[in-house]
């Protein structure tokens, strides 16, 4: 009698056959620490960030956003340094995603100020009229439930005590509800008055987004990745497009696509500072402004060097200079 007339034997044989590939490509890698390395530089999520992550999961953000920057030149230019395995040691579940209807988010932490996220989550179309992202304004109208917070970090083995979890929550709440909070104005715009003194679901989600890729950026800062600067010759020669009408027009166009979202169409600022006044936080020379645009600045100015290139940065500067006049 062959196996084709013995159903139970057939079933056992089938299981054996499917287990070969399973063991070699899934089970054995699980036994190898190199599959999911753990690094001291990568910290677990705080209780607040974890709540934000759970909201990200609940709303299915992973259906449109990935969280892995691949080692491809254009991808690194668009998003930042490619993803490393150790970054995901505390990710249960992983959230790498499978489709980029929206952008990759693995390097979004620290790229924009919190106010950018509040405004964007409240109404993506107010910042990018052609975006098709759903508005998540209602997240600011829901108080964050923290009842399970300690149980959650315990299940995940993050090692915080119950007091530490409470302290993390209170600390973050104090930060975002304080009048000194840099994004207070926009947070108050999107949060109903009765919740302005509490933690909302949107607060937690912003905390989570700001954590993404943050630790890796810290590691890079400790190394020698410099802020991109104008090449010395260009810095000395000054802006090649100064006063050039066509270049200013081109700069205007670039400004509207890349900068207006935060600095407003007229350059008078909203999320980012006013560019038409006398005050320059990081220096008023052309080469300083070039560095700000090219390499970005802390507190939310993203680096545009890899995206738009040197010539276009000078055109944008020519346009900005034309605003003051």
């Amino acid at each position, binding site marked *: 009698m062959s196996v084709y007339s013995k159903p139970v034997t057939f079933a056992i044989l089938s299981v054996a056959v499917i287990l*070969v*590939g*399973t063991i070699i490509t899934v089970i054995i890698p699980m036994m*190898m620490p190199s599959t999911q390395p753990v690094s001291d530089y990568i910290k677990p999520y705080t209780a607040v960030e974890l709540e934000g992550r*759970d909201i990200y999961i609940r709303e*299915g953000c992973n259906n449109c956003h990935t969280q892995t920057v691949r080692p491809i030149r254009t991808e690194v230019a668009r998003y930042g340094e490619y993803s490393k395995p150790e970054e995901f040691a*505390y990710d*249960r579940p992983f959230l790498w995603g499978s489709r980029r209807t929206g952008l990759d988010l693995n390097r979004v932490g620290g790229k924009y100020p919190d106010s950018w996220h509040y405004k964007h989550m409240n109404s993506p179309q107010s910042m990018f009229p052609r975006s098709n992202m759903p508005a998540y304004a209602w997240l600011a109208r829901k108080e964050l439930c923290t009842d399970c917070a300690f149980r959650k970090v315990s299940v995940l083995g993050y090692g915080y005590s119950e007091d530490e979890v409470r302290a993390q929550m209170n600390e973050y709440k104090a930060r975002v509800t304080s009048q000194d909070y840099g994004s207070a104005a926009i947070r108050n715009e999107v949060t109903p008055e009765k919740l302005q003194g509490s933690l909302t679901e949107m607060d937690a989600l912003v905390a989570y987004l700001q954590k993404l890729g943050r630790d890796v950026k810290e590691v890079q800062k400790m190394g020698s990745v410099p802020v991109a600067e104008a090449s010395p010759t260009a810095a000395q020669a000054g802006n090649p497009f100064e006063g050039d009408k066509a270049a200013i027009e081109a700069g205007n166009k670039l400004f509207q696509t*890349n900068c207006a979202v935060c600095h407003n169409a007229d350059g008078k600022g909203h999320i980012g500072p006013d560019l038409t006044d006398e005050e320059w936080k990081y220096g008023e020379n052309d080469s300083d402004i070039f560095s700000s645009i090219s390499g970005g600045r802390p507190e939310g100015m993203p680096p545009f060097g890899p995206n738009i290139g040197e010539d276009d940065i000078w055109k944008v500067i020519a346009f900005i200079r034309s605003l003051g006049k």
Partner: protein
Amino acid sequence: MSNNGYDYTAVRGFALSALFWLIIGLVVGLWLAAEMLWPALNFAPWIAFGRLRVVHTNGLAFGFALAAIFSCSYYMLQRLTGTPIVFPRLARFHLLLFNVAIALAALSLFAGMNTSKEYAELEWPLDVVVVIMWVIFAVNVFATLIKRSEKQMYISLWYTIAMTVAVAVLYIVNNLAIPVNWTKSYSIFAGANDANVQWWYGHNAVGFVFTVPILAMFYYFLPKSTNLPIYSHRLSIVSFWSLVFAYLWTGAHHLMLTPLPEWIQTVAIAFSIFLIVPSWGSVINGYYTMQGNWDQMRNNYLVKFFIFGITFYGLQVIQGPTQGLRTLTSFFHYTDWVVGHVHMGTMGWVSMIIAASFYYMVPKMAGREIYSIKLADINFWLILIGQLLYTVTLWIAGIQQGAMWKATNADGSLTYSFIESVAAMYPYWMIRLIGGVIYFIGILVFTYNIWMTLKGTKKTSAEATPQAA
């Protein structure tokens, strides 16, 4: 009870369940396609894209496809063993439990209770229900097989056994989690391991839900509908074992260029290419079965469903491994190309074979002829045109989006902002929505035709029967 003591209650119940969840899943799909164009349609949390997409994928993969698979499995099992189902009341309970589980699944996903792991989004209490339901199914499968009066097990039964054992292993391992409360749990695997387990599961859900049981239907219903024996028994043996062996190695081709160790990615791609061979073994077996009888494409309304279905399967299994190659994945992955790829499999292969199987099985079971061959033909052309419009459009969209993401200026900077690559998609998404509507109308015709056949307004038909017995 029908002739020979076969029990068709569960078969009929699952067939109707399949049609019901098919329509629900497609309405949700159309809504999603519209949301891609008009974000204002995301007007409430429960209907926002992120939650709704999961209802669409689960509703169709498990509500529709799995119900159809249970229906046809209970049918083929009895016919191929020559034995009535051993526990018919258990099968009826299976039917009830299935529909309760799918309804609860839909509700919980609308409510945002989901684990985020693709095609395994259900939270742990429902996972437990699914496992119980699967055991109930397996009990009937093996009890009936052991009691069978037909000595040799036909090809379709091999595939049914493989599905039964493989899905159990895959589903349980990927859903291992530690509960926080009744509606929330965390995967026991972290980071790269979780990703590896998930796509081992995700790809084999395609393998053992969208491929293996559909091949079981193909191997049974094609010869039945045409009265032609399958071309090569030996080819089917080789195809079967190499398919079920190789499938499990390939999940990581969904994770190319991610932080997963490179060797796992490379092994996955090697086995993916190898998989072309057993897959095409079945395609060739299907084509050669028709040798010398290709006139049935015109004269027998069912044959075109089977032949087009297996052809889409054949194209699918070439496209899949190809787009997984590192150079091509770096271009195509994360774009709509992949969405087009999946939908050729589901709208082309899976739903065409299920439609043909129902058209053969339901009249047999009801003891009367199909309500209308003409409607079946309309059904065929509508789902064919709708599917092609949908998939080809998304391939082109994917090529454009991939190219826009990679375009650079002379100085190495990026040519397009991301939002420009989104805005460029709107015309394609409009055509996709139209393709979806055409397909949906085809499915409504299909449902009506099956419903009217079951309702039995027509005892005998003036239309010619395509099959002899």
